[in-house]
């Protein structure tokens, strides 16, 4: 690799009223490399990228950003200008129009036009050429909303590349992807590197830096900590740089003592309530004990969310099999019914399903349990506030006060609000669907501690996770799902990443027979 620098940050400082988001940040990014940037939430990654993509134009920060040796001065039309300069960003929240095709999305705002009429043939042939060049396997005529998240992201990348991007910024690109899709993305990025595109790669998943990046920059509290070639680093180094202290374990030790079985699921089958012919759960069996954390592993699309939503009474219609709570068979008509019986669920997508973002923390925490504070018709708002404050305190939600809107909180704190909401319902079984998605290492650790405490209090916790390390680090047992079925339960003592992956990808049958031969 050459030492040719494409981007240089020199003493970049960005202040907001009351906070310094970036303080004196200086480092270089080399041409054609994949450069990882990591740091906890609030470390300044997003602010830095917003300077680069023109959200904060030149003059709103101090210091210099040199692009190809020249100072980058993004003015009034700064965002558009950044794109024209060849700096493109693929946002964490995908920004495509779902109701039009891939080709139209890629050319949105720059459709090939002849005398005011769009030349559709050119548009699609250009699209196809672009997709082929970068080995992006997306059908150009497909409507975006019919695509999976992975393909949507490819479309997003293609859109960026269609602007002739020299620098591609990927903000947590894998947070919504399944393992197989992540592999695909990695391949695409390697391909881009061959074409000379520089990538800036932001992620919370530390392993990914070692898979894909050439060098890594760590930011902490708005300060630049280190920029180093990836091969000279270890995971522990990254964690130490990020949190500013050596964190020996990423998963806190719990003192969980699983008791008797509280929830049993026997050969559960369920169908899509909107489409009778579509079976979404095709045979799942497991049991959950009091005070246990039961991990559910599986690839994205393996039916994990569908399974827990069915148990929670909100999605699937049970056609066969049983759900037993404390030995008694139960049915859950809807979420209210499930809660009454002691089952709560922290949903996967906290912004869409967990929070009313425009409302206060208080209103969010008490939303599911208002009936408890109501006498006749009136809500006792003092009691409501008192209990909500207790949860906010015990879960260490960081906010100026409980009247702050949920949307003003960081991802980790939002998640704590969602967890508080469900704990208020005093569940016996707490289902957590990917509880640490998009949350920084430090807050993850806090959430793990909370989970341990809850389990120690005797709550049975079902945790879905896309991160194998998390499953292995936190669970007492692991249920693996593959194609809407449970394909095995592993005790944590003999669970390994390899065993789980083998089951999750459906290749376990072979390895099993091999084992028998041994």
């Amino acid at each position, binding site marked *: 690799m050459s030492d040719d620098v494409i981007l240089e940050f020199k003493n970049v400082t960005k202040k907001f009223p009351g906070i310094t988001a970036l303080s004196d940040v200086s480092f270089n990014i080399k041409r054609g490399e994949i450069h990882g940037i990591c740091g906890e939430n609030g470390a300044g990654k997003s602010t830095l990228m917003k300077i680069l993509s023109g959200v904060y134009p030149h003059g709103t920060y101090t210091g210099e950003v040199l692009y190809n040796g020249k100072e980058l001065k993004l003015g009034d039309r700064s965002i558009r200008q950044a794109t024209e300069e060849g700096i493109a960003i693929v946002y964490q929240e995908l920004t495509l129009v779902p109701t039009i095709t891939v080709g139209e999305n890629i050319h949105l705002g720059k459709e090939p036009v002849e005398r005011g009429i769009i030349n559709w043939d050119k548009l699609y042939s250009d699209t196809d050429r672009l997709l082929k060049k970068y080995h992006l396997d997306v059908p150009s005529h497909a409507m975006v909303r019919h695509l999976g998240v992975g393909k949507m992201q490819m479309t997003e990348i293609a859109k960026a590349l269609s602007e002739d991007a020299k620098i591609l910024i990927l903000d947590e690109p894998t947070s919504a992807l399944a393992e197989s899709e992540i592999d695909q993305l990695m391949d695409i990025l390697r391909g881009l590197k061959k074409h000379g595109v520089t990538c800036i790669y932001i992620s919370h998943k530390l392993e990914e830096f070692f898979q894909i990046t050439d060098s890594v920059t760590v930011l902490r509290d708005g300060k630049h900590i280190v920029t180093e070639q990836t091969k000279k680093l270890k995971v522990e180094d990254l964690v130490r740089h990020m949190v500013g202290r050596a964190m020996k374990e990423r998963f806190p030790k719990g003192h969980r003592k699983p008791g008797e079985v509280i929830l049993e699921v026997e050969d559960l089958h369920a169908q899509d309530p909107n489409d009778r012919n579509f079976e979404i759960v095709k045979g799942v069996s497991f049991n959950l004990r009091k005070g246990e954390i039961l991990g559910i592993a599986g690839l994205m699309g393996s039916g994990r969310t569908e399974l827990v939503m069915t148990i929670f009474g909100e999605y699937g219609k049970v056609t066969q099999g049983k759900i037993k709570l404390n030995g008694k068979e139960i049915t859950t008509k809807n979420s209210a019914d499930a809660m009454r019986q002691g089952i709560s669920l922290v949903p996967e997508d906290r912004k*869409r399903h967990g929070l009313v973002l425009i409302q206060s923390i208080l209103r969010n925490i008490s939303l599911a349990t208002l009936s408890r504070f109501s006498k006749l*018709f009136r809500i006792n708002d003092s009691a409501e506030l*008192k209990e909500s*404050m207790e949860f906010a305190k015990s879960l260490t939600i960081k906010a100026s*006060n409980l*009247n702050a809107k949920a949307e003003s909180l960081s991802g980790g704190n939002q998640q704590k609000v969602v967890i508080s909401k469900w704990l208020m319902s005093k569940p016996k079984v707490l289902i957590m669907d990917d509880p640490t998605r998009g949350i920084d290492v430090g807050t993850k650790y806090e959430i793990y501690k909370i989970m341990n405490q809850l389990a120690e209090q005797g709550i049975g916790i079902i945790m879905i996770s896309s991160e194998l390390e998390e499953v292995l680090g936190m669970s007492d047992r692991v249920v693996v799902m593959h194609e809407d079925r449970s394909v095995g339960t592993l005790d944590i003592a003999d669970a390994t990443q390899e065993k789980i992956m083998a089951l999750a990808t459906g290749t376990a049958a072979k390895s099993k027979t091999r084992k028998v031969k041994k």
Partner: protein
Amino acid sequence: MTALPATQKESATNAITKQLRGNLQTYALVIALVVIWGLFAVLTNGTYLSPQNVSNLFRQMTITAIMSVGMVLVIVHGSIDLSVGRLAGFVSVVVAILQLRTWHHLFPEQTLLAAILSTICGIGVGTLYGIVQGYIIAYLRVTSFIVTLGSMWILNGAILVATEGKTIAANQEYFEDIGQGYLDPLWGWLIAAGVVVILFVTMILGRRRKAKYGFTLPSMFADILKTAFFAALVVGYVVYVNAYRGIQNPVLILAIVAVIVSYMADNTRFGRYVYAIGGNIEASRLSGINIKLTMFQVFVLMGFLCGVAGVVMASYVGYGTIAAGTGYELYVIAGCILGGTSTLGGVGTIFGAMVGALIMASVTNGLQIMNVPSSWQYVVNGLVLVIAVYADVYFKKNK
């Protein structure tokens, strides 16, 4: 608003500025209202602010404002109701027919009983229509826009059928007092005194309750000042209208309706659910909220309030006519939007909508006094709405 648990002792001025800042939008509206009043006062050489005109102005807004109270919840929870004007119109026609043709056969000479029965029947018709409409929207899942658009036509036809194209008098004794009567000034004073007592008692009880739960209380001075301010508003209003003929009956009805529904919006599960659903329907569903039931209830309440408005309308106008309530839905919705209700749902207050309705009524009334032709009144109304919402967007952007 939920009171803040003050973490440290804060000074009174601090508390007040905080309060002011928190409700900036509402205060901006109040300021706009004062400016409009001032403007018309100058343009009409003071006639505008005479007790008689102020009394009329408030009376004029009551019918649409009663419906705005319900419309806030309809819009906040993410729906729309286009049928309100015609529903109130239909109710007024039904009530007029009962007044003119039915009651005196059944209960001759019993005008008070007739008025009471008319009121009950009118509200009943509105509520019943709300139940049907709510059922179709919530449980049969036809969008509110379509259902209520259809209702406009249906009710239009129903009004024509019921009236046979004729105008029906509804100006009988007692009944006419509902929309046209005034309270004896003495009653006005008593009500003013009662409201002041209630305001202060609520404040003190609220502080006690907070203290019981161990919260640090906001400064006593700030609380007293705030309560005194609202008390002064009420007393001031009564002084003013008593200088003419006393508290207007329809305004009293509006005030009662607005206070009750406003309390419901903040302090009952129903109210909280409406706002939560408007903010995020999926999160609300997963929180165990019965979405369909809440939606149904919202439309039943809307129907009930259309019933109230229809009864007031019949009495106020004195007739049931084929044009009753035509176009009122626009004033009702505009009042809400002016008052800060978000068309995206989740945000909006009844107090704001009342100020919004008052602004619309103030402009119309001012133009009427100045003898501006009604064609231009429409133009001005439209401009006021768009400019006001633009101002809101502008201030939000530059906050």
